[in-house]
């Protein structure tokens, strides 16, 4: 049994792997990481070897190996959905990765220095609108008018939202516009990098169909859905542990 732990900026994800996902758990990343990791281990069960990844990989003291998240994402993309490209949208950044036949990274590109295309931005927006994260897709699907969002800054975008609220716009239309603006930034990133062919979208934001559908539509090519996209990097990490320590 191999454990992959991905300590992201927003969430810490753990996956127990044995040729397939046996169990998985997610906790919010906090200042006090010891208790976060303890909770996760409690939820996930016993493991033999562990690999950690993500920006806080170094905080997982029980991990025997550490691996970069781009590597883990590439492995997961190739092994799970056989994709040539990954577009990862996490709490704070958008990353485009190209993957070779064996699941190695060919090249990757992380986004411009601005938080507005990130998952955290989506959270801030939805909470300003009083929409729970789980309801985003449903709300967005009820939109009946397309609003423009131009502001590229997360913080300004927030005042745009307030502005729309004042104009009496519906919550649904506004959240759809927010999803749209995140999708647009992701698409620009994908095109700049040159994503084409078979690709998948991972990271917490890929859970929202209202965003992935917009992206897939704009990029074209062959989009494959990643099952439990938020777990992608932790799955990759678990596979790394398997390759390091397993007897394959």
């Amino acid at each position: 049994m191999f454990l992959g732990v991905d300590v992201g900026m927003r969430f810490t994800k753990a996956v127990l792997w044995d040729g397939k996902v046996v169990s998985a758990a997610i906790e919010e990343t906090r200042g006090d990481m010891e208790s976060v990791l303890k909770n996760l281990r409690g939820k996930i069960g016993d493991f033999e070897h562990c690999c950690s990844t993500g920006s806080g990989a170094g905080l997982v003291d029980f991990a025997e190996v550490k691996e970069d998240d781009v590597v883990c994402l590439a492995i997961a993309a190739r092994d799970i959905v056989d994709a040539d490209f990954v577009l990862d949208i996490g709490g704070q950044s958008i990353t485009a990765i190209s993957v070779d036949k064996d699941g190695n990274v060919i090249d990757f590109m992380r986004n411009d220095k601005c938080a507005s295309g990130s998952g955290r931005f989506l959270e801030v927006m939805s909470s300003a609108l009083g929409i729970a994260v789980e309801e985003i897709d449903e709300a967005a699907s009820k939109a009946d008018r397309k609003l423009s969002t131009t502001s590229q800054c997360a913080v300004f975008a927030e005042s745009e939202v307030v502005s729309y609220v004042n104009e009496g716009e519906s919550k649904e239309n506004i959240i759809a516009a927010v999803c749209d603006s995140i999708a647009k930034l992701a698409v620009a990133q994908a095109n700049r990098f040159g994503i084409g062919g078979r690709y998948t979208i991972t990271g917490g934001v890929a859970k929202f169909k209202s965003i992935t559908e917009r992206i897939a539509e704009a990029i074209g090519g062959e989009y494959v859905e990643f099952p439990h996209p938020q777990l992608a990097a932790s799955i990759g990490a678990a596979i790394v542990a398997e390759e390091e320590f397993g007897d394959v």
Partner: protein
Amino acid sequence: MSLSKIHEIASTLENEYVEKWRSEGNAVVGHACIAMPKEVAEAVRILPFRLRGAGNADTSTADSYLSRYNCSLCRSCLELVLNGSYDFLDGLVRVRGCDHWMGTFDEVQHAKNPEFMHYFKVPHLVNGDTLEFFSNEIKRLKEAFENRFGVEITEDEIVRYAKVQDEINEKMREFYRLRFKKPRFYGSDAIAVVVARESLPSEVFLQLLESAMAEKKKVDFRAKVLLAGSPLDEIELIRKIEEMGALIVAETTCFGGGSFWNMAEYDGSEIYDFLAAKYLNNLKICARMFGEYAFRKNFIKSMAVEAEVDGVILQHNKFCDLFGIENAKLRMDLEKDGIPVLVLEKEYASTADIGRIKTRVQAFLERLKR
């Protein structure tokens, strides 16, 4: 009547007159700056069409070429070029405007490689050397047109159209003065007029302008304001500002007043030297001309006095270096001279920004005690 026609033209790209023009076998070339000597193109019935954003705020394709640090007006225009909205153009004159435009044209070439794109070089300084250079540049522009469209451009024809431009400029000044003392038009009407001018054959425009000037509107306002800063074709934005009571009675931007107010009339001299002096001297109204800050400040101040305004709004698009820096300096200096100033930073065509803008404009009006 004509005014509503003008508004219609200003809110679309390819208009019916351009369609007709093309169907008669005439060419249309895009350009992006008032340094473009219109009469050289018009002399052989090439219509110079100024690129603009037409209120388009969606720049998702352009953003994968230009960066988010580039002016949103440029990104908007690039988007329209990439998505085919400007396919009715027979070519582009890459007028040396600001750096963001230079980058934009580099990307146009990289992504689309248009068949005709002539680089028209416009100096940033005005002196004997640059005028001589610019005069030659205008000749090279003429030659580029001749080679591309298989025509011959004679000096007589250029002179003929220079006189047409003189007539339009004079009419425009007259039209602007109608807004000064007892305003008969909204600023949004005036912007529509100048935008239409950049999108129409001269003869058509002149007719529309004349009949529009005969119209009379009832105009409500709390304060009279002069608008300056970066180029602006956002009629919707002006309308929103005016709805709050800040009537734009004068403006010095390069779509508007700046494009004709100081334009010299043909004086019978050598045509290319004349055009060089005419366009380069007029360009001093733009922040891209260095060493001419005093000229711009005085232009704004004198127009503010003539139009009896209560205050000045200096606006610029986010990421516009030229006007962003210029406005910081102008704000200090105009305030020092007792002219109340509001600086507005905005994203091109952002309807979502409107709330922020409204609060500022309202407070500004309150500051003016109106």
